[in-house]
């Protein structure tokens, strides 16, 4: 079995939403100025709904554009509003409201946004393109944690950070428990799960789990592959990415969303500008999401979009061939 760096202990799958919910609850208990902006879309795993916080729940109904601007104004008056919804509804629907009313003035609004390749909900809700569309917006911190431990730490960091930020609550099967409790999360810092020699998988969110599976598959074929977890898409940790490229000379990116303007493109740009390196992207290729059944045995969508461990492993082998062709 593959060996892992210090703060990694691969364990049972756990829901990232639980980690987010735990940190939100703690933040709400600590800071009376934290407010929940609700858009008729509460999820059970986010537990801010306690009796003594009832007057901090601003229910705006299914009117996300209004909700975003109300949140902006509350932040302008010193509150910390948190919006929890599907990304397509809270952020894509209110894209210009977020740009104009929140980001221009750097207002301290937090988003917990659901998106990703998963489940039966279909094309309207299983969006894959919203995350990338946010990357172009200035002043927005973008977090995509890999497991429940990191989700809790990232949410805590997001609530402490002053300024607009979004954490992606990924729609996916539950990822492995990856990190130990003493894992040091920092906004803007990537973390190397293992360094590797032949190639590096730069993964984010749920795809770190598939990357871990891919490492085991590749090890059986005698390949030593590293994994770099980039949980902050913005600001991007270019230094860690370039260091990984220097070490292995072959980069595969893996993300549970569109590969346009997401992690893959961000890494490709960082490397082209600093250290041109063979690169293969794994992600949804210019296509909308759709419904699919997920059971323990079978994940129809992961098959359809080629986002499973074997697809990541194939991409690694393809990339290593590219590297060798350049020699």
């Amino acid at each position, binding site marked *: 079995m593959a060996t892992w760096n210090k703060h990694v202990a691969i364990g049972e799958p756990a829901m990232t939403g639980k980690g987010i919910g735990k940190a939100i609850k703690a933040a709400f*208990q*600590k800071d*009376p100025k934290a*407010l929940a902006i609700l858009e008729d879309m509460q999820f059970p795993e986010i537990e801010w709904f306690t*009796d*003594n916080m009832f*007057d901090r729940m*601003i229910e*705006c*109904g299914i*009117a996300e*554009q*209004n909700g*975003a*601007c*109300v*949140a*902006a*104004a*509350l932040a*302008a*008056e*010193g*509150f910390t509003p948190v919006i929890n919804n599907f990304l397509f509804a809270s952020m894509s629907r209110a894209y*210009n*409201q977020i*740009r*104009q*009313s929140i980001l*221009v*003035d*750097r207002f301290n609004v937090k988003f917990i946004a659901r998106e990703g390749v998963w489940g039966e909900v279909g094309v309207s809700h299983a969006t894959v393109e919203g995350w990338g569309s946010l990357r172009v917006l200035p002043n927005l911190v973008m977090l995509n944690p890999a497991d429940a431990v990191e989700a809790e730490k990232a949410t805590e960091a997001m609530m402490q950070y002053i300024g607009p930020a979004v954490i992606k609550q990924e729609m996916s099967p539950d990822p492995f428990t990856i990190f130990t409790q003493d894992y040091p999360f920092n906004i803007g810092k990537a973390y190397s799960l293992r360094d590797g020699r032949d190639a590096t998988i730069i993964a984010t969110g749920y795809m770190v789990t598939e990357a871990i599976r891919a490492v085991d598959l590749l090890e059986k074929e005698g390949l030593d592959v590293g994994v770099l977890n980039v949980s902050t898409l913005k600001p991007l940790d270019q230094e860690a990415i370039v260091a990984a490229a220097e070490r292995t000379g072959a980069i595969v990116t893996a993300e549970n969303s569109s590969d346009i303007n997401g992690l893959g493109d961000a890494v490709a740009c960082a490397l082209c500008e600093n250290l041109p390196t063979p690169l293969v992207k794994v992600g949804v290729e210019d296509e909308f999401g759709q419904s699919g059944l997920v059971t323990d045995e079978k994940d129809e969508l992961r098959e359809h979009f080629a986002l499973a461990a074997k697809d990541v492993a194939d991409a690694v082998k393809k990339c290593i061939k590219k590297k060798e062709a350049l020699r």
Partner: protein
Amino acid sequence: MSHSDALVQELEAKAKVLVNDCLDQFCTFSQGHVGGTMSVLEIITALYFHHLRFDPKNPDWPERDRVVMSKAHCCEAIYAALVELGMYPRETLRTYYCHASPFQGHADRWCTPGIDFSGGSLGQGLSFAAGLALAEKLKIKYNPPSRQDTFLPRYIVRYNPKFRTYCILGDGELHEGQVWEAAMFATKFKLDNLIAIVDYNKWSLDGPTNDIMPIEPLVDKWKAFGWTVYEIDGHDMHQILDALDLVSKQYGDNKPKVIIAHTVKGRGVSNWEELHMHLGRGEEMMKGVREGRAKYGDLE
């Protein structure tokens, strides 16, 4: 509740000074949103030079009344008021539209002290204003939790500034669905500290507002959304002052208020009035500026 003629005359004179300041801004690049700026000038004058709690020396004063200029393309009118209040030197007017100027093409809170809202993308102002009004309410409403919970702070430091929020909307802007989302929201949260003012100048960029997309019956619409509605002549200083006084006195009735101000686009300059000019450019613009100068007097 009528106001003295002396006050009205003083404010009317001030409005003319603001016209001149706006003409200065229009001259910078021979361009500006002349129509909507000229139609809202008396309202801005009444707000900034009589009605608002606003301290030019301390534009971030927590107890200031908030002004959300939702039709932020007409921010020239507010810039003129801020100059006349001594917040910015007169030369700043000539930097309107310029790089790094505090007087950006559309109002920008981040770089212009005195501005409460970065507008320009229409339809968002009333939501933002409702959020500000809600913040004022929350501070009043909030009580430390009654049940003992060791996690919650024992004391909660709350500074409770009291303020009103004024939101200036264009009539064409009422085509935006978000305005009506905000209208519902304000009623739900009983935002009696929120006052919307519709600058109803009847003309949008492409033509008459009610031809482009009818907004009438406007009074009934606002009433149906639970608002208290007043209709005034938006160029009559007596009526403006009376309406502002009236809405302020009704704090505590749990209802948001809207003043529908009937105005004339491009008011005061015949050329702009005839053309219902929205965005003035080039020679048409300068023709109007010359007429305005002749009429209101170049104070420089």
